[in-house]
């Protein structure tokens, strides 16, 4: 897989963080990425990247929903006692 430059990864993380913490931005990113990112046009590659970002935001939310140090949870938080 092509390795992305550090600056690109940092930008990606900022977008993930923004989408995680700002529901309006996230909704806009889903519905109208060109407006949310102030970029026109959105290329197919960028669209793919946005999809990946939204998936990663979902991953973070799943992890928030689990309790790693507690019993049983498996997704980001499996059980400590078996």
């Amino acid at each position, binding site marked *: 897989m092509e390795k992305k430059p550090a600056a690109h990864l940092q930008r990606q*993380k900022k977008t*993930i*963080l923004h989408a995680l*913490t700002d529901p309006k931005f996230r909704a806009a990113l889903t519905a109208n990425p060109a407006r949310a990112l102030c970029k026109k046009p959105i290329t197919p590659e960028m669209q793919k990247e946005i999809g990946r970002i939204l998936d990663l935001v979902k991953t973070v939310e799943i992890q*928030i929903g689990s309790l790693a*140090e507690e019993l049983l949870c*498996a997704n*980001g938080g499996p059980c400590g006692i078996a």
Partner: protein
Amino acid sequence: MPEAPRHLAEVLVATTWECNLACAYCFIRHRELGAAPGRMSSALAARVIDAVDEGLASVESICVHLYGGEPLLNLPALEAMLTQAQRKRPRRFRFAITTNGAGASPAAADLLEAGRFQVVLSIDGPAEIHDECRRTPDGAPTHARVLGFLDALRSRTHCWVRGSAVVRSGWGLAQAYAYLCTLPVDVIKAQAVRLPRGARYALDEAQRRAYLDDLGTIGREVIAALEAGRMPRDDRFSSRVLQLLKGGRRRAFCGAGDTGFGIAPDGTVLPCVLLDPAEARLGHVDGDPAAWVRAGRRWRARRRVRAECRGCTALPLCGGGCPAMLPICGDDECDMTRRSCEVARAIFERFRGRQEALLALAGIT
């Protein structure tokens, strides 16, 4: 939970309460084994998949987490669930298992690979520590068998593996943590034994204080990993730090009764498999799934924050404690959870102004 989007539900399925070990500190053993022996049939296991698929239709994805007892004692049920899940839409189901690994066979490893299981494998420490408590009913040690199973998981499967140790009297958190770090596992967790104070193997006062100190030490190791851009191997603080990152309060300790359910070997549906069926039965997998889903919501709505939690600074991150564990070891559980919340806050504060670094807690590096 903080405005939980319904991405994932977790259903804990005990396919048997039977176990091939007789661990000295097992709370499940004392509570359940005598009361409800038997194994879930293959037909019922397939029905579990259908029932949760229907009942949790509004949730994107369902994790079926096999528990017990020892779930690898009931491979036909495991296989039936995998087969039935394959008939659903792609990525609808994922699987996890908590196992002692002591009776695992090549066939079991192959099934785990087929389901791409997340495996929670119990290994307390080196042989002399592990085998002191984790023995078969006739007294045979199991450490070598468990390591053999771990080796099989690593060589035969692509399963994600969590090494899990029980911290107990005479075996501290820092020691368990250090031991787990030597194993070829993806993530680790060492956690205090769940026993009432004064019980054999329960931590005494000094050991509890040491445990709380060790949580701080692990927190510093998490910070070091994040500073290096790595995902920490011990992820016990991750969900709470990420919650602080996102903002919002945890409204309940877990998703029990909403995005979490438990299913006993006889098909009884509960908010969590660790709750007493006499007090928390929601229905049966053969019944209308909508009925046990509604019953789960009612069970959840009836739960109130305990009086002693109301003034607790940890409440927004804790959500009020585990309903299954509070009756067993509530005070200890609270002390440890409160300390975990403090450490989570310290980790979060450390990265104020450069919060992107915290995304490594979710594997985003």
